[in-house]
């Protein structure tokens, strides 16, 4: 397996609170990896550490062979990041927004115009390319975010809740785009989501985070076998997830109970 993201005992503490606790994770090149977990489980924190935007308290990480803490610039050159609720300069047009980001990435003006049109066409925004982004709907903004990531031609993309707040149609389009990203261009996709049925549909493997711990990782079948004891066919990710979740909550109450004693 050609590993593109690798973390070893990656830990982040905020004061006494541990956001991510000794995370050991491997993501292979070209796969779609789904990152599941309730709010506040440490998914975004993990993304930020992998991007070098936040410094880990201890442990180490490698993204495309680079250390995000020490070689942040090299990591940022090959990683595209779509944050939850991506922001744009609202008083600029979509094209201007993309051009600015392209300049920041050192893409030269010569090839730029064609490239911007190509990515906007790819996400279906070419008709609205000259509109101010302030007038965009949520789904359009999200798609523009994907266009921005595409323009960088990254090896890995981090998508933080890309489907949150989208209508069913928008969600459908977004997922289709994510899948194509991976299949057509061989880009590794690492994305977090709550919407389990969608994750199930497009992910090769999933990891489940609970309160900073990675409690389960593997393909859907693996997890189903491990947790539900069923062979195939009749399970949904939701069941697996809930199983993990309930176990996690039970374990947590146990430990707090012990601490109280």
């Amino acid at each position, binding site marked *: 397996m050609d590993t593109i993201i690798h973390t070893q005992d990656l830990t982040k503490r905020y004061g006494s609170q541990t956001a991510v606790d000794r995370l050991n994770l491997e993501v292979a090149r070209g796969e779609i990896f789904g990152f599941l977990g309730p709010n506040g489980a440490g998914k975004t924190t993990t993304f930020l550490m992998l991007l070098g*935007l936040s410094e880990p308290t201890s442990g180490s990480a490698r993204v495309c062979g680079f250390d995000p803490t020490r070689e942040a610039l090299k990591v940022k050159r090959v990683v595209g990041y779509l944050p939850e609720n991506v922001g744009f300069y609202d008083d600029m047009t979509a094209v201007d927004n993309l051009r600015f*980001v392209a*300049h920041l990435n050192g893409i030269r003006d010569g090839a730029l115009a064609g490239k911007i049109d190509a990515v906007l066409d790819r996400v279906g925004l070419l008709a609205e390319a000259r509109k101010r982004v302030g007038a965009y709907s949520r789904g359009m903004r999200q798609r523009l975010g994907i266009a921005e990531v595409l323009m960088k031609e990254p090896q890995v993309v981090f998508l933080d809740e890309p489907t949150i707040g989208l209508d069913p149609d928008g969600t459908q389009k977004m997922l289709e785009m994510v899948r194509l990203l991976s299949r057509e261009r061989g880009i590794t996709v690492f994305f977090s989501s709550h919407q389990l049925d969608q994750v199930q549909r497009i992910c090769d493997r999933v990891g489940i985070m609970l309160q900073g711990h990675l409690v389960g990782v593997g393909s859907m079948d693996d997890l189903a076998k491990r947790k539900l004891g069923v062979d195939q066919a009749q399970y949904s990710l939701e069941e697996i997830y809930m199983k993990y979740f309930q176990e996690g909550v039970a374990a947590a109450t146990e430990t707090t109970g012990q601490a109280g004693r």
Partner: protein
Amino acid sequence: MHGLFVMYRKELEDHFSSTRFILLLTVILMVSLVTTYMVGTGLRKELEGFAKPSLVFLLLFTSTGALFSLAQFIAFFGPLIGMILGFDAISRERASRTLSKLLSQPIYRDAVINGKFLAGLTIISLMLLSIVLLISGMGLWVLGVVPGWEEVGRLAVYLVISIVYIGFWLAVSILCSILFRGLATSALASLALWIFLAFFMALGASLAADVFSPIPPGRSSDPETILNHEQTRETVASFSPITLYSQAATTILDPTRNTTRSLILMGPMERLSLSRFQNPLPLLQSTLIVMPYLISLVAVTVVCFAICYAFFMRQEVRST
């Protein structure tokens, strides 16, 4: 370097197309032109019948007409210009959620604040330069006096000092926008600092002088005591960039002032020598007097920027 240039260009574009810049420029131009006209016509009346006094052109900037002199106006309004240009530098990016995107691009973090600062500084320089040129042009027309090299040189030094001074306030407001999350909070914080330095520093300075080198009741005419008292007061006061600036600006614009000290103890000999040598200082000498002030101003700005770096480099960047 590359990221810095891209940021700089974008910020500059933003400034030029913003309503805020246009309003600011309009207000400043309006005040400057009206004041110059009033001062200019006043000067012309006063100087009627006199041979051309030396360095009359600088009087355009320093003499108070009906309201205030231009130098006073810039000293008062300059900090506000700096603050208006910088108060939302980082907090606006944060509010529109573009900061995390910006920082996940392959540029150094300091390119973001450097680009913003340099763009602001460019705007300030352009504004001041255009004001001084406009006023000079109008002065030519109203006074009918052509400025000599000496005067042009003094104006240039004055311009540099003013740019550095307003640059300091720009740095302060950028710092506030890094430290505070809300737009209004950051604007108010820099405003508070300005009010403190402008109004309470002088008060604090005389208080400090009273405490550290008091003038005992019976010895109010003892020169040494008074001198000590004054020195303490000036030392404390010069911690404020406002004091630094006003001292430097008045010294460079008024060539007959040959020291920045406000109190000179004079015996009969000194008085004699003063009245005999009441001649304007050459430009080089004035510049020498002003230099320490200019350097202090630059130093304060650099310190302010260093604090910006220290905070911004470590700040957590979250998208939500």
